[in-house]
């Protein structure tokens, strides 16, 4: 019996074998592997399929699922699987842009609001509450009216929705960090506001904000796909996850795989992001505790 066996087990598990322990959870490993695959599809789609997503093949129109065409082909004989693979980059671009907008703008607003406090804080938080008052999809649609359709527009329209929640989270983190002894001590040593912000407040407040942002990637993928499904994304023939589902709808009763399979890819990706984000958040809180 060693002395360590008297100590709480979690404290050691969380540090030493954190990564190994995570990988032992089969669902986490699966989710991580799927996301790695998605990243490959976005970076180098040619590795995952030998078909050209734009190549029209009149001899193989509306082909069913087969070894040659995993997801079948569409009304122009284009390989649906290839279109999903090549569509990844557009969909992911919009989702990442959305999360970055929410993260950067939201963090700045929250930081300002929490650090300056007082009247500025009250006014900013009222604005944030107003943003939260409009259902996400409705706000996105209003923004798209102004921006017009397109991948970048969708990214912006979805990103604006997460600004408010990130700002709130950042503000509450800043408020709690600000009161801690080391920040007070730094102020006592005569360090200026910017130094304290950069040296203490931001590093300590950003952890949970980043975890929330990872979770937001899943929500953003869903939102982007929804808007693209409604026909507000990149114009055809550019493939996008959501618009592929919409394109398949026209052939729905007989060629159901044309829309269901791209839809399943979206669902599995969102599920994987949520899984990974949740495990990361839990292991983070285990580390702190």
């Amino acid at each position, binding site marked *: 019996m060693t002395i360590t066996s008297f100590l709480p087990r979690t404290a050691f598990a969380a540090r030493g074998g954190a990564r190994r322990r995570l990988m032992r959870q089969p669902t986490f490993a699966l989710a991580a592997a799927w996301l790695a695959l998605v990243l490959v599809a976005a970076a180098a789609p040619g590795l995952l399929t030998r078909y050209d997503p734009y190549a029209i093949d009149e001899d193989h129109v509306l082909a069913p699922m087969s070894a040659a065409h995993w997801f079948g082909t569409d009304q122009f004989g284009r390989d649906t699987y290839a279109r999903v693979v090549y569509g990844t980059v557009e969909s992911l671009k919009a989702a990442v842009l959305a999360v970055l907008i929410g993260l950067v703008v939201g963090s700045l607003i929250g930081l300002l609001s929490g650090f300056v406090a007082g009247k500025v804080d009250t006014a900013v938080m009222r604005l944030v509450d107003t943003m939260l008052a409009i259902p996400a999809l409705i706000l996105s*649609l209003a923004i798209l009216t102004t921006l017009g359709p397109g991948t970048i527009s969708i990214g912006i329209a979805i990103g604006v929705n997460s600004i408010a929640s990130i700002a709130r989270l950042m503000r509450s983190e800043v408020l709690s960090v600000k009161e801690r002894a080391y920040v007070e001590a730094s102020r006592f040593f005569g360090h200026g506001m910017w130094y304290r912000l950069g040296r203490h407040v931001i590093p300590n407040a950003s952890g949970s904000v980043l975890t929330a942002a990872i979770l937001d990637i899943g929500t953003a993928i869903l939102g982007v796909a929804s808007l693209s*499904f409604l026909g507000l994304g990149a114009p055809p023939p550019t493939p996008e996850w959501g618009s592929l589902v919409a394109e398949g709808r026209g052939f729905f009763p007989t060629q159901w795989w044309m829309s269901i399979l791209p*839809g399943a890819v979206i669902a599995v990706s969102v599920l994987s992001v949520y899984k990974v984000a949740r495990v990361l958040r839990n292991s983070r809180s285990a580390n702190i505790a």
Partner: protein
Amino acid sequence: MGYLKYISRRLVYGILVLFLTFTGSFFLLFIVPGDAAGALTTGGEGANLAAALQEQREVLGLDRPIQTQYFDALWSALHGDFGISFREKVPASTVYFEAFGDTLRLASVGLLLAIVVGLAVGLLTQVVHLAWLRELLLAVPPLFVSLPIFLTALLLLQLFAFKLGLIEPFGDESLAGLVIASLCIAFPGGANIAQLLAVNLERTMRSPYVETLSNWGLTRREILYRHGLKNAVLPVLTSFGTTVGNIFAGTVITETVFSRNGVGRIIVDAVNAKDIPVVLISVTISAAIFVVVNLLVDALYPIIDKRIQVA
């Protein structure tokens, strides 16, 4: 007295949110190139068209400075007038409220199903003793939260319209059509409620007072129904406004997939046609619904939980 003051403060705050929403959307949509005059003027060429446009702009008051237009629009909106729809050439409020009933019906049935199923599943996770069933009940809600609404809608359409032939695939107006369409929004909404309730029940049932009660001889089930549930439902109630908002937004996709009439389809058409008055009224009414629901939640909260200090 404290309660009245609390409610009136929340009311003023709700009105402020509505005002900011209207103002924000007005200026956001004002940037859109092309205005009502362009949309409402028909015929004419070259100089003729330009003259007609100018005349139309003067008639509509679009030649005035933006702040004048804004206060005018605000004043009209307060009287229910959001301008003439560019596409339909009738008041935007007429276009919107003609479809509102259909969406309200869809959203209400969806919300009702979401609450019933969500509460039932959330509660079952604490009541069921079979380990595998418990795991299943805990695993299903996250799945439904991740499922895109359009995918659920398409699967339901395939099953009920094409395989079973229970409903019409396009714009089924029957009760069966309504219930099946409302399932798409009930699934993610209910999954959210179930998740929240399960987590909170779990936490509540591990709190010290539960142990005290159990030492007094109460069974776990008695504690759960008499005490645990009441405390665990409060966070669910807090997020009710967001749930309603999501369900309302979910109707946009559902109505598109099931080809149903409703506000959702009107919004999508309006966005595509840049029909600004219709977009403006849609955003404002959506926010109004959210404000009203939250006001109701705020009003109920101190009544349900006496510990909450109203001020």
